[in-house]
């Protein structure tokens, strides 16, 4: 187990470096840089473009340096000082802007993951043990529809229902009264009243997928001879199902962290724009549109790091639960 852990952790470091490099290249891709945006804005408003100011800005943000110097400066500051650079559009250090939003992204993604598990587990086992029953067909149908509707459509439809039938907007995470209030029980309740919308929207697709995989796994296990042996020995149906087949079929739940998490983080980006949630999505979008490269780059990198961390966690958990994986390495 220790060897497995070490191997995994060692692989983690080059992955992080690759992520930072790719992110940096990506934010350098757009033609021009942030100064182009400033010049454009100045010209739009009819102001004079001050060459001295531009030159000063260029040196300040290191835009006059060659590419690899910019990269080394950027990554060096992140590792050594936790300094993600300066958001040029917001005129604040990037680290001031991203942490709270990343925290909300994490909270929303992880609560969605928990809800996904809580729904998918019983439903998948029911579907597998009652194969081709009306209930199974119903869940299969719901699952297919859940997979087919784009996330933002569900968000739009929920908003439309909320607005036209109940007369209130369901965007955001807090009501107007609580947005600036400090944390209290009432604020928490208010949060829960808003949180279910993104959870439902985000969870639908993942739940549908997880149900199908787990159902197939349990079905495969149920056909194996050891289940027949268990039954022949006179084990109760309950024990014959729960003791081994279900436990074996649990793997997708753990490995789902690895592939559901990128999906959730991806999905929450769009949903947050639609539902105006205080997560990374809306800020990333505006940063990309205004070429605020350090802000966009930090978001992209931290989101990727989060997913890689999630995958790492799920690999470790999987090895811990399933000796076949642990011992094969």
């Amino acid at each position, binding site marked *: 187990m220790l060897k497995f852990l070490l191997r995994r952790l060692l692989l983690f470091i080059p*992955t992080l470096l690759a992520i930072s490099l790719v992110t940096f290249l990506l934010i350098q891709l757009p033609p021009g840089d942030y100064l182009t945006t400033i010049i454009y804005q100045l010209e739009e408003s009819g102001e004079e473009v001050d060459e001295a100011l531009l030159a000063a800005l260029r040196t300040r943000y290191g835009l006059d340096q060659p590419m690899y110097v910019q990269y080394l400066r950027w990554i060096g500051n992140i590792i050594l000082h936790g300094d993600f650079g300066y958001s040029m559009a917001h005129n604040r250090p990037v680290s001031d802007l991203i942490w709270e939003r990343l925290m909300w992204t994490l909270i929303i993604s992880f609560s969605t993951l928990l809800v996904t598990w809580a729904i998918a587990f019983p439903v998948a086992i029911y579907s597998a043990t009652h194969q081709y029953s009306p209930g199974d067909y119903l869940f299969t149908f719901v699952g297919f529809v859940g997979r087919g509707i784009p996330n933002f459509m569900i968000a739009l439809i929920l908003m439309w229902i909320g607005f036209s039938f109940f007369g209130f907007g369901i965007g955001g995470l807090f009501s107007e009264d609580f947005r600036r209030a400090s944390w209290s029980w009432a604020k928490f309740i208010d949060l829960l009243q808003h949180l279910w919308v993104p959870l439902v929207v985000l969870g639908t697709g993942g739940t549908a997928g997880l149900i199908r995989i787990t159902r197939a796994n349990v079905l495969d296990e149920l056909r194996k001879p050891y289940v027949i042996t268990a039954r022949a020995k006179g084990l109760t149906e309950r024990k014959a199902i729960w003791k081994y087949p279900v436990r074996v079929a649990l793997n997708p739940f753990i490995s789902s962290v690895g592939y559901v998490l*990128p999906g959730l983080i991806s999905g929450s980006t769009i949903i947050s724009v639609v539902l105006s949630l205080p997560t990374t999505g809306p800020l990333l979008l505006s940063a990309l549109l205004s070429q605020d490269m350090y802000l966009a780059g930090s978001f992209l990198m931290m989101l990727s790091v989060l997913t890689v961390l999630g995958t790492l966690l799920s690999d470790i958990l999987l090895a811990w639960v399933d000796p076949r994986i642990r011992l094969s390495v």
Partner: protein
Amino acid sequence: MSKSQNNPLARQDKQEKIYTATQWQLMWWRFRKHKLALISTAVLILFYLGGAFCEFLAPHDPHRYDVKRVYAPPQALRFVGESGFRLRPFVYPIVSTRNMETLRVEYKLDPSREMPIRFFVHGDPYKFWGLWETDLHLFGLQEENSPMLFLVGGDDMGRDVLSRVLYGARISLSTGLIGVAMSLVFGIVIGGVSGYFGGITDTLIQRVIEFLRSIPGIPLWMTLAAALPRDWTPIRIYFGITVILSLLSWTGLARVVRGRFLALREEDFVLAARLCGAGEMRTILYHMVPSFTSHLIASLTLSIPNMILSETSLSFLGLGLQPPIVSWGVLLQAAQNLRSIVHAPWMFLPGLAIVFAVLAFNFVGDGLRDAADPYAR
């Protein structure tokens, strides 16, 4: 099933048929059993025909607008009027009045006048497939100075939603196909190399694939799409977006191809082919590839809907295709405005089209996946 089992002659007959059937015949028999997949195939064919012939099918040019018909209500097709039942459908004209209290324009259908729908009418001119000019439309109103026809309603600029959805089908459905075709090339080449050579090449490629899969897709696509120069022509943006989408999705196909290669390498028939003196290329192309084409087609079909959804999401955010182009995502952008949706729920129509297309592709893909392995169970 039970009948043929009771009758040994019929059973033997059936078995002989199975033994002599070709691979593709077996797959078709298997696919036929999946009723939903059959229906979905028909739906998809209709969708693609709609996209291919959108200029002819749509009653209007997608950019034609009528400022006096902003958010015009749907004009339902009617068959029963004052004169009783008529075979030729008709609609009531829209009349707009200004509500003096709210000062808003309100629309009503005027049941005193019946406007018959005519077929093969001359309407807005267009260039069919960019080849020849015509103004023939399948249906429409043909009267002198006839107003626009809004079968499912009008949008925020008084354009016909139905026509726009039909034009959007061409763009949205084709991005899926072109994108998947591109990722197929990447997937086969890279996956094939990985599976065929094995060893260090394989490990390296697999690491890269794992890495690409660990980056959350939409933020990555957003970054790439934002990098497209803004002065590009719509057509170049369209191809740019398609390339971006296929940049990430080839990984799934590469995995399928590699897995198949690895599994087939050990099969007896491959060994037999080698023993008979078949060369490397011949073994791959004549013996290995045909036995995984069906799997490949199934996974291709299953990756098209993801492509469509991604394009839609990007365009919806304003990072993908841009307004002069009509795609379902671009159309849904107008549905972001909550107030407009409450007044004009028919703006959701492109969303409905997406849901149907994606579901249909999923069902067909499922059916194909089952059919790809006709000997199972």
